């Protein structure tokens, strides 16, 4: 195999993995929230962008090290989520068909955040880039990959593994899955359902923030990334099965590889809508999603 072919092959693999883990993180965050409190969070893209912009401010404007800034921003999502839950989200817990109410509510949040970003960050720059967490390049055979992207990919992978372990083996994770499956039965078994609602809103947003932070570490971005990510996260959740964390995780990775592979055999333009086409086809045969129970 020639060096050129090997480089293209390895670049496809790393791109698939990189995009896949980021997509998975965001989709898992969205799914955790939807699965527990039935909130289709239309603002997930703006939350993702908020995290990216906060990291940019912390590093570029305040000179913090990107690793420290990343931890700080993910940490900041916790009080922000608690505040949002206490002031807005919990008011709908007893509303029948609250998913529609939540969708409209989060659309409103989307518009407000988009407006705020537009008159602040949008005026400061047309593009944003943070300094690398790790400088330099690693050679995988003939293929050079920036250490920064490698680090972001590994951290995202580790976070997904930790999240999977938390949901499968920790008592909170078991309680969360019980609420996902049947909240009345979970309540009868002594699960604090409202506590789980609150915790899943906080955890889901922290995961979306982590996605935004790692994305900002790996790529330059602008304000339009919010819309791209919001659509992608919803598409992954729908194909994987709304409420299925495993589905979000697997389909996120599949999406990443689909984009990378289709972009080389067809074109980046075809790749951009290939997964949306796949979504429509899959929904024709399994409308509840591939991993729905």
């Amino acid at each position, binding site marked *: 195999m020639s060096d*050129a*072919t090997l*480089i*293209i092959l*390895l*670049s*496809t693999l*790393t*791109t698939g993995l*990189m*995009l896949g883990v980021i997509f998975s993180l965001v989709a898992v965050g969205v799914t955790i929230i939807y699965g527990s409190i039935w909130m289709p969070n239309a603002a997930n893209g703006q939350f993702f962008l908020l995290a990216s912009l906060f990291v940019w401010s912390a590093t570029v404007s305040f000179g913090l090290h990107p690793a420290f800034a990343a931890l700080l921003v993910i940490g900041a999502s916790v009080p922000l989520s608690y505040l949002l839950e206490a002031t807005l989200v919990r008011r709908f817990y007893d509303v029948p068909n609250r998913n529609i109410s939540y969708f409209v509510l989060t659309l409103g949040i989307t518009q407000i955040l988009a*407006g705020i970003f*537009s*008159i602040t960050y*949008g*005026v*400061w*720059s*047309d*593009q*944003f*880039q943070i300094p690398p967490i790790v400088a330099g*390049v690693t050679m995988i055979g003939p*293929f*050079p*990959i*920036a250490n920064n992207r490698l680090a972001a990919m590994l951290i995202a992978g580790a976070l997904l593994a930790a999240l999977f372990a938390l949901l499968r083996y920790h008592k909170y994770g078991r309680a969360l899955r019980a609420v996902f499956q049947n909240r009345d039965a979970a309540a009868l078994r002594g699960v604090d359902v409202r506590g789980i609602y609150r915790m899943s809103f906080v955890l889901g947003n922290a995961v979306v923030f982590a996605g935004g932070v790692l*994305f900002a570490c790996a*790529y*330059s*971005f*602008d*304000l*339009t*990334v919010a*819309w*791209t990510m919001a659509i992608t996260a919803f598409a992954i959740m729908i194909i994987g099965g709304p409420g299925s964390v495993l589905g979000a995780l697997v389909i996120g990775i599949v999406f990443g590889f689909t*984009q*990378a592979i289709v*972009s*080389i055999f067809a*074109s*980046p*333009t075809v*790749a*951009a*809508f290939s997964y949306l086409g796949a979504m429509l086809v899959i929904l024709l045969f399994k409308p509840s999603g591939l991993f729905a129970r």
Partner: protein
Amino acid sequence: MTRHMSTAVLAAALVAAAAGSAAGQESVKVGFVTELTGPWAFFGSSCVAGLKLAESTLNPAGKRKLEFVTIDNQTQPAQAVAAARNLDVQSKVIALSGPTSSDTALAMYGYAEQNKVPFVVPVAAFPQLTKPGTRYTFRLEPNAAGWGYAIVQFVAKQKPGAKIALVYSDYALMRAIAAGLKYQAPKSGVKIEPEIIFPQGSNDATVQAAQVRAANPDWVVVIGAGGFDNTLTNQLLDIGIKAEQIIHPFGITTQVKNWGKRSVGSLYGTFFDANLPELTAEGKKFVEDFRAANKRQPSYVENYCYVTAQVIRRVIDADPGAGDDREKFRAGMAALNTKESTSNIPIAFDKNGARKEYMYFMQIQDVTEDGYKSKQVYYTEWDPEVIPVYELVK
């Protein structure tokens, strides 16, 4: 002595009368509809920052006041037209100006041409803004297809028979640049391989960077949109493309700063740059004042908006009636033969409202916290219709 005294008194009286007459007249209003929010907010805000510097010297005593009424179009064509209509009907502006996005500019173009309102476009490069038959629109920025033409001229001069890789985002502006480049390349003996188009919203270009490297081009023309432009550049550099091989058709301050030190040696096109060796004294002052006010150096966007205000002032100075009569204002714009006060580049418009076009190619020398240094390596100018620009991009 008595005669000198009476001459001085007469002169003072004339000046006072002129000033009084100017002060007594209503100010001339120009509607400045630009992008202060939405995806293009950075460009609109930068444009207004340039305009504000011009405004500080635009109304000396004795001259009729020129006033810019700035309205946000939210980067939405429909909003731009609504604002244009409001300024035309309610505020009775003498002319419209302001857009920095081709989409909003095209929307305003339709309104301006249909309603016979002079329209001075500072920064919007889509060719059709000066298509044949245009009467009321005048554009300062060269059209984007011409930028592609200029890149090929530059490459062919550096290395006859060169091969370039062309990677760009699927936006109207980028497609127009690519169209000019692809038209001129075979005529100048330049080969394009590969040509890769990225859809809007792209994030990653690693695979395509590998394809570019495998093609082993002499230069890579990189035309990404927003943050993706920088990702694209970084991923090309990551995979082993040398900075000296990269040509960006345009470079504004934030772009060049984000490309960073690793892009030292790469090239970008521009129409004004703080590092140009032949800036006029006013141009140097403009750079200093802009830097002091905005903590960054200006690029061509800010310069064009600064110059736009001066152009409008000159038209009204040349014919005071142009401040009250749109046809006279239009005629004044069409007859204008002046120079950019910042760089001495001539300004005159052809029958379609397009300027004789030009482009500088700069090579990045250093990027620091405060800004960047670059040197001019090439300059070219051309007639806008040296290529069939209005046929290439519809």
